[in-house]
């Protein structure tokens, strides 16, 4: 495979960064009191994007040796990578500005925030389109892939934000119930999208079928079933569902909320679920890159 772990990590971090930004924007509107999560999301977002970009630069060996060449990245408007470079640049500037405002405890410009939201979505989509437009790899070359990447970006963004926040404010992360609901539906959608994508591509041609079978039953099956499906999707879906079931009961008694929010063993649960979502998010991208079989030209 041409693109390996580094690019998988870059795609993952870019999605995560965009997702975290969107999560914090959502939280800031829906739960004005959940300050920890808002601040966390806004701070980690540009940092993660920055790390992602560093990885990209490291992987681009010629650019690494001659950094000035990265200027040329902005020149080809036919290239998804050029377009993505614009998206990321704008998103990065907005996210960095907002993080700075957060640090300075100043009010951020609303327009910049809207720009950030728009380009966060664009960045998440870009990570999917980057490989989705590659006709040579049928596994990637589907309309579902960018959607899958956006869904995964949001889900990892939520997970990342909650995970980091939980170190600072255990109570808060249990009060953002609609975030949790959204998260659960995202995870379910993700699982659905993955299998729909496999179903469609594996019947479309040989290379894709080969990719799919390497994931389902071949070289990568262990990582796929245990890493992505069991750990990355099922585990968080189950834990998250149980938690939501619990909280539904608890909503009726005021004491219940108190208990839940204070429960320390639940925090352990949160740590596990959110970490596993993150792990799953990375594995998803790693697998998609690794199992890419180009069309046979002979």
């Amino acid at each position, binding site marked *: 495979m041409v*693109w390996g772990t580094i690019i998988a990590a870059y795609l993952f971090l870019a999605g995560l960064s965009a997702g975290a930004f969107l999560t914090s924007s959502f939280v800031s509107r829906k739960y004005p009191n959940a300050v920890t999560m808002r601040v966390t999301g806004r701070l980690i977002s540009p940092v993660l994007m920055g790390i992602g970009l560093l990885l990209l630069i490291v992987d681009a060996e010629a650019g690494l040796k001659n950094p000035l060449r990265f200027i040329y990245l902005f020149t080809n408007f036919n290239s998804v990578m050029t377009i993505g470079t614009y998206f990321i640049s704008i998103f990065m500037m907005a996210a960095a500005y907002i993080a700075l405002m957060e640090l300075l405890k100043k009010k951020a410009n609303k327009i910049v925030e809207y720009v950030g939201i728009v380009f966060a979505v664009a960045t998440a989509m870009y990570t999917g389109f980057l490989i989705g437009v590659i006709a040579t790899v049928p596994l990637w070359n589907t309309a579902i892939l960018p959607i899958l990447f956006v869904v995964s970006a949001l889900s990892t963004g939520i997970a990342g934000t909650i995970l980091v926040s939980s170190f600072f404010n255990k109570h808060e992360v249990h009060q953002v119930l609609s975030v949790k609901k959204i998260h659960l539906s995202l995870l379910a959608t993700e699982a659905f999208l993955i299998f729909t994508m496999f179903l469609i591509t594996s019947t479309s041609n040989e290379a894709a079928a080969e990719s799919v079978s390497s994931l389902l039953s071949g070289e990568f099956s262990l990582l796929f079933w245990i890493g992505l499906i069991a750990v990355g999707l099922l585990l968080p879906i189950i834990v998250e569902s149980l938690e939501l079931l619990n909280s539904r009961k608890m909503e009726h008694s005021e004491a219940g909320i108190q208990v839940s929010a204070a429960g320390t063993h639940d925090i352990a649960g949160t740590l596990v679920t959110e970490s596993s979502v993150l792990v799953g998010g990375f594995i998803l991208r790693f697998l998609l890159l690794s199992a890419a079989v180009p069309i046979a030209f002979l």
Partner: protein
Amino acid sequence: MARYGMMIDTRKCVGCYACRVSCQMQNELPVEVSFIKFHEKETGVFPNVKNEIIPVQCQHCEDAPCESVCPTKATYTTEDGIVLVDAEKCIGCKYCMVACPYQARTQDHLTGVVEKCRFCAELVADGKQPACVTTCISNARIFGDLDDPNSEVSKAIIKHNAQPLRPDLGKSKIYYVR
């Protein structure tokens, strides 16, 4: 303006790698970097076996996928239809490698630049033949102007009904006899 192309007769190719090595010398490539890759296809059961050797290098596609994805415009097409990489612009992102349907690109890890067959542009500009064509010990390679119906290559393509590897993937400029 020419539109340079090549015909490779796989029924003549003996898989001798002379083209590969002469190309490396011509282009002063590190030993690990090669523009020509060899694919072998064995069919049948002993003793009724057929073996096909297919040398593959950049097919100099028209509307080349590698060119459209290249974010830096390092990959470009000359007026003569030769797809080239400007080594001074390439950042080594490998997007072109991912996009190339023929896996014809390779990264030089010394410079980080992603490279591929150049149709020996500098020799051709001098009116000479590419190194791999000159040296091909079985005359399996013919190079010339595809737009000129009287060129040796055009005539040979018609004579042998040579076809691109995957005509359905777009117009490429290397035609194969198989």
